[in-house]
């Protein structure tokens, strides 16, 4: 791999990757080094955010070719639009006026992402505990605030989309259930349909899997699929996180479940869903796909920042430098598409970049 010359432990930034104290230790920054950017929240946004943070903290040089830049064998996606000889974090930080460090694993400032839930992330950014609140649902729903309040206090950075496909166990898929209508799914999740034979499958009970009550995914599924964020549901099992849902769908041969797109894997199959006559297929090459923004289960993945006295724009330079990384072709490809989420269309990227302060 790209860092074979490093001893295995030096590689992941043993010395100065992050930790609020590390900034002050780093060689060429003064004592007033920028603080670590912290983020927390939704497990759905976590893969994007965490991967971005890892890349940032690694501060790989442009000669790496695997994580950043290009070499003889490979170059990262979107590299042709960037073309710099700076390290990755150095480059994006310098766009907002930070001194590059020039060292691997030593970004101009560090980033850190914690995993919890959308609601927790929103609360944390509200209370000023973190810089960025990750949320898979709109903050208005999570914190129960009005849109005016939102606009007055938060800036909503959308970095990608989740298609939230519906999955079934491989055996069910093989038995012919390759698509369901919205009605049928609603029936299954509200306990009206309990046997696969009722929807053209084998004669076996349906094992209905949901996400934890109050999780962003659960809320948006109720909202988008069942019509109301408070819609009643009747499931056989609920799991706190996406991974468990995936595992259980694999372990059982009669299960149906929904989860973030990022968690598709072997042993489970995403199915097509027909809404009002339109069939959205999981296949990216199909006419209508679950990646389309028309797909009802499609939702934005947010990174909220807080407006306060110091940052009337809502986003300071550090946050902007970090967020901007996601809003490049490189970022969309590496942090969004590679973890199986839906990238933003170019126009949306432009709109999102507009929300950031001007580059230096």
């Amino acid at each position: 791999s790209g860092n074979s010359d490093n001893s295995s432990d030096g590689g992941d930034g043993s010395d100065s990757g992050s930790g609020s104290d590390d900034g002050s230790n780093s060689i060429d920054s003064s004592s007033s080094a920028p603080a670590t950017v912290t983020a927390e929240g939704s497990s759905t946004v976590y893969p994007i955010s965490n991967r971005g943070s890892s890349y940032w903290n690694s501060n790989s040089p442009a000669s790496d070719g695997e994580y950043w830049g290009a070499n003889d064998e490979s170059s990262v996606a979107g590299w042709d639009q960037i073309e710099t000889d700076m390290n990755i974090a150095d480059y994006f930080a310098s766009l907002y006026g930070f001194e590059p460090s020039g060292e691997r694993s030593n970004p101009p400032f560090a980033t850190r992402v914690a995993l919890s839930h959308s609601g927790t992330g929103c609360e944390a950014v509200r209370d000023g505990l973190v810089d960025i609140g990750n949320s898979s649902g709109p903050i208005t729903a999570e914190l129960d605030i009005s849109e005016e309040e939102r606009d007055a206090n938060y800036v909503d950075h959308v970095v990608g989309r989740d298609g939230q496909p519906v999955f079934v166990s491989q055996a069910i898929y093989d038995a012919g259930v390759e698509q369901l209508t919205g009605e049928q799914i609603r029936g299954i999740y509200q306990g009206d349909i309990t046997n696969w034979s009722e929807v053209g499958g084998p004669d076996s009970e349906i094992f209905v899997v949901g996400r934890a009550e109050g999780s962003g995914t659960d809320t948006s599924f109720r909202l988008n699929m069942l019509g109301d964020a408070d819609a009643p549901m009747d499931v056989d099992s609920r799991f706190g996180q996406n991974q468990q849902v995936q595992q259980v769908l694999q372990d059982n041969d009669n299960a149906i479940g929904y989860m973030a797109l990022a968690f598709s894997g072997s042993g489970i199959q995403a199915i097509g869903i027909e809404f009002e006559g339109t069939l959205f297929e999981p296949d990216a090459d199909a006419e209508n796909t679950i990646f389309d923004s028309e797909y009802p289960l499609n939702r934005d993945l947010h990174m909220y920042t807080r407006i306060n006295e110091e940052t009337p724009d809502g986003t300071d330079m550090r946050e902007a430098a970090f967020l901007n990384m996601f809003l490049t072709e490189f970022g969309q490809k590496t942090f969004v598409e590679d973890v199986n989420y839906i990238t933003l269309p170019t126009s949306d990227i432009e709109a999102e970049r507009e929300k950031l302060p001007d580059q230096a």
Partner: protein
Amino acid sequence: MSLTPKTDLRASIERRLTRTQEFVDDTDPGALAVVLVSMGSLLAAFVGFLLASPWTAVPFGAFLIATGYGWARHQALVARAVTFAMTTVTLVTLGLIVVFIFAESIPAFQYETASVFGVSVPGLGMFTQARWDAVSEPVRYSLLPMIHGTVMVTTIATLVAAPLGVAAALFIAEIAPPRVRELVKPGIEILAGIPSIVYGFIGFTIINPWAGGAFALNGGSTYLFVGIVVGLMALPTVVSVAEDALTSVPDVMKDGSLALGATDWQSMTSITLPAAFSGVSAAVLLGVGRAIGETMAATVMLAGVPRISEPLVNVFYGYETLTSLIARGYGSANGVHESALFAAGVVLFVTVLCLSIGSQYIEARMRRRLGGVE
């Protein structure tokens, strides 16, 4: 009749007062001052911490300094004061647990107020209907499904842990040859060390899928296997406490039986077990307490849906226990929902505390009874 205890009380208070007076008179005023400063600042630090004051560090620093100084100059008195403070910390901890989890659970209890005979009783609704739904209307926080789950898991766990545990305790205390005993005893103790999340990991990745297939279940979460796993976890507690009780039966009693030509088994069942009966039941109670409070295996193995299995004794489906409800829900819950989790904590805490006090009572009775033999 009511006079005697009162005078007793007054006398004891008076005695204590005079003793305090004497103590103050006898003690070096410097030492007394240091101790007063030290204890006062500790109290202030505690109050500051309770109020979440940023100034807490100041009295705490004062406490450290006063105590350090006192330790150098008046060690005996300071040591006494500090150890007393530490004793208080233990009591205060229990008190704080009670206060905080009760306080946090109040909104849920209020929300679930139900009336009986025209009197509205807060929290009654949690036990009189069976619906838990924190999202869709009507939002209800019944604890019954979780109590049912806890009872199921605990019952199965007890069925596993009690007979096996008592048998193993008998084996260790009475039957095993010394060599074997020296292997088995630490072995079973080590069993207590296996972290519950490791059990949970095995349960979730191995047992659940297997159970789903082996019994053609709709899913793989079962009270049966959660109960068995939890029973395994409670087993070492039962074994070690029961073994203590069995070995505390005086050898002369067992010898007496054997010398009459009774077999070992007869001596165990007719003499040792009856004599140690209280201790053994205390062991089982403690094991039950362990099982009730076991969290992680239940959390990762159960389905996480607050529902009562049908029929009630259906062990092939496992939905939710009090512990798993808290572990799973905490974080994504807020408002009354979060408060309801604390209410579940209150139910757990009170139940286990009762079991603990019960087993202590039983053990104390046994000690008294065996003590009477001598």
